[in-house]
């Protein structure tokens, strides 16, 4: 009975209820709402949205069999339009097989090495971006809904700590811009709430599609902080915290941002 009670208490203590968020759902805004009309139009039109070039390429890769195992993504998962529907909205996620919290890119690489028996793709490589964009595209419009309980809790706590920790030569924390000063101007930019709904997304500054980790590294570079390497656990933890913080907002991948 004590054990049952302990589990009961853990469920409540371990859960991160929505009201803990600094911004309630009614105040949450996607980054695209801070962009100009032309960027919004570019994102809304699938033919003008360059991110769709990666989605198309991802579909080709999804169906291509690996030489070593003869397996394609489609061999196990079938048509992504049904099997991957809503999946990306739950990432980053604790994956038992890997005993770690993985973001979408890491999950694809985990599947490649474990099931397809092919080498992992490099972070920010065209092929990995194409696959993650294609998978994320199947969840377009699905509200972000990550799990931060149980095994994912430690990563979530680390991500939250990172978010509120001051970093770099400018000595500022994520929260100072994205919770306390969103909507105000930073030179030519309007500060967004830092909701990760666009990614993998096309950023005009990059002239390319990029992952959320690339965006986070760019933010850290901007405040003159040390940038964790692509794929570093600190970035995955932060991705998880940001996804939880934005839960309820629909995924836009591939989004378009300045």
């Amino acid at each position: 009975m004590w054990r049952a009670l302990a589990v009961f208490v853990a469920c409540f203590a371990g859960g991160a209820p929505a009201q803990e968020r600094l911004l309630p759902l009614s105040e949450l805004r996607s980054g695209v709402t801070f962009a100009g009309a032309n960027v919004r139009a570019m994102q809304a039109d699938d033919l003008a949205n360059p991110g769709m070039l990666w989605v198309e390429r991802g579909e080709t890769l999804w169906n291509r069999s690996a030489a070593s195992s003869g397996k394609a993504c489609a061999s196990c998962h079938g048509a992504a339009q049904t099997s991957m529907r809503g999946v990306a909205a739950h990432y980053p996620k604790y994956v038992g097989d890997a005993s770690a919290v993985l973001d979408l890119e890491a999950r694809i690489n985990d599947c490649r090495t474990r099931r397809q028996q092919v080498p992992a793709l490099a972070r920010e490589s065209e092929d990995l971006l194409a696959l993650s964009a294609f998978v994320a595209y199947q969840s377009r419009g699905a509200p972000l809904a990550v799990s931060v309980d149980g095994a994912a809790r430690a990563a979530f706590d680390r991500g939250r700590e990172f978010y509120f920790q001051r970093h770099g030569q400018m000595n500022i924390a994520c929260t100072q811009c994205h919770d306390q000063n969103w909507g105000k101007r930073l030179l030519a930019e309007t500060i967004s709430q830092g909701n990760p709904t666009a990614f993998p997304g096309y950023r005009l500054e990059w002239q390319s599609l990029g992952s959320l980790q690339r965006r986070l590294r760019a933010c850290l570079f901007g405040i003159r902080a040390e940038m964790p390497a692509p794929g570093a656990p600190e970035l995955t933890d932060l991705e998880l915290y940001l996804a939880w913080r934005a839960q309820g907002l629909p995924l836009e991948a591939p989004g378009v941002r300045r």
Partner: protein
Amino acid sequence: MPDARISVPQEAPRGKPFEVRILIRHPMETGYRTDDTGKPIPRNVVTMLTCRYNGETVFSARLSPGIAANPYLRFFVTARESGELAFDWVDDRGVRGSERATVTVV
């Protein structure tokens, strides 16, 4: 690998202009940038794009390094008869790309 995304209406009324849109996958490297070691990255942009409508050139454009990566073009063509729109382009390295789209005139 698809090199471009094209949008033309499936059906177009005869004698009326219809909208053609094309998004080409290309880095449009300006030639003004350097890589991480300081070495200049050679210029590589799409220099020429043509669109032929049943063999006849109806649109052509010379592109320059001032145009962003993954160039997007939009223009109008007058519907005369059902047939094929053939897009061909070439970049500084001499790499050629082409795509086709069909339109039915009603």
